[in-house]
């Protein structure tokens, strides 16, 4: 059995980038809003359709499609916030009720996409062109390379924004102490909407980037949601470094499994991975890398 290490690395890097975008979104939504967002896959899929619609009717320019996906994702994220977070966050049993609400939104959304767009999957125009490169013995398409570079660039930008802007500070403060945040004029509801918009935008970006390899369909949100959840949990909910490390590990595991024992075992090995991580460190990888936050 010949395993091409270059191919594994390229595939793993691509998957890690996409999963990272989704997992960081899920992780931040949980730690800042206490919301387990089962509709994050819907954000992914619907943003993909938004990008497709813009490509169909407005312009199929790479940057335009990319931005359209991000904006569509942000809008869907905010809609989910309006439907599942705002009415429920200060009521009893919020966590369970919001989980059910996002699940319901996800199921309804899937049917809506099925009805509106039909079951056939749609391709998105190539955002990064048609070039291809060589990395060792592997061939890397412009789409794959673009996906990897764009993901990390965007994540760096967001990290910078989170650290230096007022909104970023408000979100970081609200994550740690909602009452303290209110005492410095930070409104929970408007900050929550900002969180849903940013994480939705990340999901939308992931959708456009992944669509370079896979097409957009009504059910294209399920697997990304699952993978995103696995990575977020393995990384430790609320930890961005943990999510990044977990994304890299999960990407490697998936690529390796796919080339060695076959793609049908990918979910099995990924679930095994997260089970083992959580058995050893219930707080996820974050429990290993972070000292206890005082």
């Amino acid at each position, binding site marked *: 059995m010949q395993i091409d290490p270059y191919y594994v690395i390229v595939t793993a890097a691509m998957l890690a980038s996409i999963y990272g975008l989704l997992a960081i979104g899920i992780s931040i939504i949980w730690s800042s809003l206490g919301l387990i967002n089962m509709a994050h896959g819907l954000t992914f899929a619907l943003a993909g359709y938004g990008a497709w619609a813009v490509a169909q009717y407005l312009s199929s320019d790479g940057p335009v499609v990319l931005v359209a996906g991000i904006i569509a994702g942000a809008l869907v994220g905010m809609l989910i916030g309006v439907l599942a977070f705002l009415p429920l966050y200060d009521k009893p049993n919020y966590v369970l009720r919001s989980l059910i609400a996002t699940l319901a939104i996800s199921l309804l959304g899937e049917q809506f996409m099925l009805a509106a767009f039909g079951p056939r999957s749609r391709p998105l125009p190539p955002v990064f062109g048609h070039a291809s490169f060589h990395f060792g013995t592997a061939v890397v398409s412009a789409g794959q390379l673009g996906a990897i570079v764009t993901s990390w660039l965007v994540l760096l930008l967001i990290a910078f924004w989170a650290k230096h802007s007022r909104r970023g500070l408000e979100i970081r403060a609200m994550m740690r102490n*909602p009452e303290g945040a209110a*005492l410095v*004029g930070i*409104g929970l509801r408007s900050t929550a909407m900002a969180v849903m918009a940013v994480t939705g935008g990340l999901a939308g970006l992931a959708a456009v980037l992944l669509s370079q390899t896979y097409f957009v369909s009504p059910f294209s949100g399920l697997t990304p949601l699952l993978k995103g959840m696995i990575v977020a949990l393995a990384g430790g909910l609320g930890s961005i470094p943990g999510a990044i490390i977990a994304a890299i590990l999960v990407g490697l595991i998936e690529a390796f499994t796919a080339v060695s024992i076959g793609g049908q075992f990918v979910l099995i090995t990924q679930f095994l991975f997260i089970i083992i991580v959580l058995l050893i460190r219930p707080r996820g990888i974050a429990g290993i890398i972070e000292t206890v936050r*005082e």
Partner: protein
Amino acid sequence: MKEVLRVQGLSAGYGPLTVLHRVNLTVYPGERVGLIGLNGHGKSTLLRAIAGLTDWQSGSIQLKGREIGGTRSQSAGRNTHRIVRMGLALMPQGDALFYGLTVADHLNSGAFTRSTWRERSARRERILEIFPPLRKLLAAPVGKLSGGERRMVSLGRGLMTDASLYLIDEPSLGLAPSISKSLIAVLSEIDLKDGAMIIAEQNLSMLEGKVSRLLGIHAGVLKGGADALNAATLNGFAGAVR
């Protein structure tokens, strides 16, 4: 002279427990009011009710003539950020810090209007002059600070944006007397301009000479003036010295 704070018939509590019983209170511009009371008698509840943080409350609270009270039985803290933006600063018991963020982050978070955010470096500098020990600690995560330093961060954060009413809940809590005394001295020297301040403490001796008016609170009922001091000694308020 318009009152800074006018509380009328305020009752408030947590769940089935009523802590405040139809409290009336008026605070005028320039006043520094000391609120003395033992634990459990309503000091914190009064300050928190003004900020809208109790489980339920009823009665009128007017901040600079604008109504911020009213009757509600759920959604504690829902409007707190709006009340804060109307000119209230609450430095709560326990500091309400953002563990994981640095001292500089905390001070910056206190600059919550557009103009104060733009001039946050200058305002931070002012706070550092008031609390010099924080200067070396700007990049330190607050979890690594001592109790006194954390208290300074909480107070400094509340002072970053000018408020009409400052509510300070037990600045001496958990601190050595010498540190508490210096903190309260600092608070007593802050220029209130048209605003006012209420400092809640258990220990009467902490506030003597530092405030312009003393109130006592006992079992959720306010007592003012000479009554407050008499009540303090008669009921054996902690540290009452007379």
